[in-house]
């Protein structure tokens, strides 16, 4: 009974992971770059929303739209100025560069908005929801619903829209994509835009839970684990993995103690990787000699 309740909360919390992981995977597929700045992009999105919602007379949805716009602009700039130069570089460069960008974003945020936590306007209805005997916080439910909705929407987009097809082509093989006359840089930029959107959603959802501080980026600390758990090239896989991770964190936190939350995700993913290097749902990336 209790277990069921914890599980629901955990899975609900996992929605954000799935959403973040998705943006992460799109970028990786198109450009082979692991975006370690995901957490900071998320944090920035939340701050944008905060900043715009302070504009008097601006309805929250308008503020949110502006926030997404802001994140997109930042993402495009990052991609254009930095990431574009990294393609073909060894993994470590991409990892370090995105980490570096993360530090810059975090530093800038704390410079502008300071360290003191700030409350986001309560967009998500807070009233708890009864599911039979089980009680789940409103935030969690609505956050989950939105996260999954956005995730699915972008999956559909990725599957069926023409740009989506171009994106998939780029993902499978850049050279071929070029020869097919697909504008590869454009579709890479597109992945960053999609990432910006998903991270902003995630940021606002996460920020509405505990207020916004530069440390909000820590929420994404285990998103890399999620991605590898699901499989770097499996769009559906990472969403499921996200929910699994949320569940795992909550359950381990509840039954083993809060201090386990940090280790569990990575221990789990380590075990999985040793058995299935390509993740639970990922397909093996063949390497040519």
């Amino acid at each position, binding site marked *: 009974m209790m277990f069921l309740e914890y599980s629901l909360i955990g899975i609900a919390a996992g929605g954000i992971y799935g959403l973040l992981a998705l943006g992460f995977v799109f970028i990786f597929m198109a450009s082979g770059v692991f975006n370690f700045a995901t957490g900071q992009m998320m944090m920035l999105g939340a701050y944008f929303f905060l900043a715009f919602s302070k504009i008097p007379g601006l309805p929250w949805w308008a503020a949110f739209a502006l926030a997404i716009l802001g994140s997109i602009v930042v993402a495009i700039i990052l991609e254009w100025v930095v990431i574009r130069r990294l393609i073909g570089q060894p993994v470590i460069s991409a990892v370090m560069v995105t980490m570096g960008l993360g530090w810059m974003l975090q530093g800038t945020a704390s410079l502008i908005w*300071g360290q003191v936590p700030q409350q986001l306007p309560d967009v998500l209805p807070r009233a708890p929801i009864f599911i039979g005997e089980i009680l789940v916080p409103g935030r969690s439910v609505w956050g989950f619903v939105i996260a999954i909705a956005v995730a699915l929407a972008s999956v559909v987009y990725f599957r069926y829209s023409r740009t989506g097809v171009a994106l998939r082509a780029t993902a499978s093989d850049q050279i071929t994509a070029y020869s097919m006359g697909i504008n590869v840089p454009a579709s890479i930029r597109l992945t960053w835009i999609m990432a910006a959107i998903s991270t902003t959603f995630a940021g606002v959802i996460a920020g509405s839970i505990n207020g916004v*501080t530069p440390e909000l980026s820590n929420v994404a600390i285990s998103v890399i684990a999620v991605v590898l758990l699901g499989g770097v090239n499996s769009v559906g896989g990472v969403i499921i993995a996200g929910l699994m991770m949320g569940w795992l964190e909550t359950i381990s936190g509840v039954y083993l*103690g809060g201090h386990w939350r940090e280790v569990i995700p990575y221990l789990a993913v380590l075990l999985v990787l040793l058995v299935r290097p390509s993740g639970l749902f990922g397909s093996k990336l063949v390497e040519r000699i």
Partner: protein
Amino acid sequence: MFSLKFSKRNLLGIVGAITLATITSSAALAQSKEPLTWSVNLSLTGPLAYSGELQAKGFEEFAEWVNQNGGIRGRKLTIITDDTQYKVAVSVANLKRAQSKATISFASGDGTPWVRAVSPENNQTHKILMSSGSFASDLVDAAKYPLHFVPGPNYTDQIIMLLEHIKKSHKGSAPARVAFIYSSTEFGRDPIQASKAHARQLGLEVVLDEETAFTAVDVSPVVVKMRGAQPDYTIFQGYATSVWPEVIRLAREYGLKSQFMGTIWAMDRGIIVKLGKAADGYTGVSPYTFKSTGSKDEVLSAIDALRRKNDPAYDGYPTIPYMQSWFSALMAKRAMEITIDAGKPITGENLAKALRDLKDWNTGGVFGVPVNIIGNRVPVGRIYKYDAGKNFEPVPISDWITVNK
């Protein structure tokens, strides 16, 4: 022959550098006779920045006050403030940097790691009087930390005060059900074992013992647990600005009736006010007097004047971090006055002795009662309750308590 010239130039440069360095350092020694220099290390960035800012303000305005009144026995007070980012290496480096500028007669730190890192070398060589924002339980060990003084009761003292209060005020036949919710940080875990033991001693029932992350985390599971455990009283320990307010909100939304309580760092009025209705009746320990307006006492009225002068938006409640800085500083000031009056040199030992020998020290309103320093701390505090009805006025619901140990 070119290389020969080259090496000459090099060596010359080195000699120059060395002499320069020695001159500057000795010069620093010479001029440091006159004013008193304190080194203040605070976490102005990172998760503890919120209180760090307020603490910094406290030391600033304390220096302002002292120097307005002719310094400490005529010696001007200068304060070197540094940001530690709550990192040990950084905070130690800061103190060393400060020492390279002047002779430091008092050093204040951001937390327990700082005290632990500085003490070993300090106890042997520099012998600087120390205080900090840490109320960790083992710092009262005067043998291990002879030069460090806790500016109030340690965390265990504080929770014991709360438990005793629960024991006294609890209605109903069944024993009071108590829950501890604390951060998985050093200061979060610090008092929990001792407190649980004490609770059982008092015949209280510990129904929940929950550790959470220090910042941003989904607290729903915690509240679900509370719903299962149904504690009458829930005590927060070791948080800054997040987690505990959200627990309160969510618990109220879940319709839980538990009485929430906090120790010193979970008593910030600003946050309580933000919480609004949900925080009505929130109860906690503070070592210091809460309100400065209308105070007749020397220090408290001075604080009130300064605050009004420097902060037009001042609401009459100097924050707890601010007061903590003031009291740490007051201890140092008092010790130095005594030592100077006695004509003794200002060394860590002399200052520490002066503090330990203090009898019924009148703190000018910071504490409501004359205090004594027992085990390198001031085990005095008071329990307040926030009343939403009275614009969240923290109403004292106990007398000033001194934990006798």
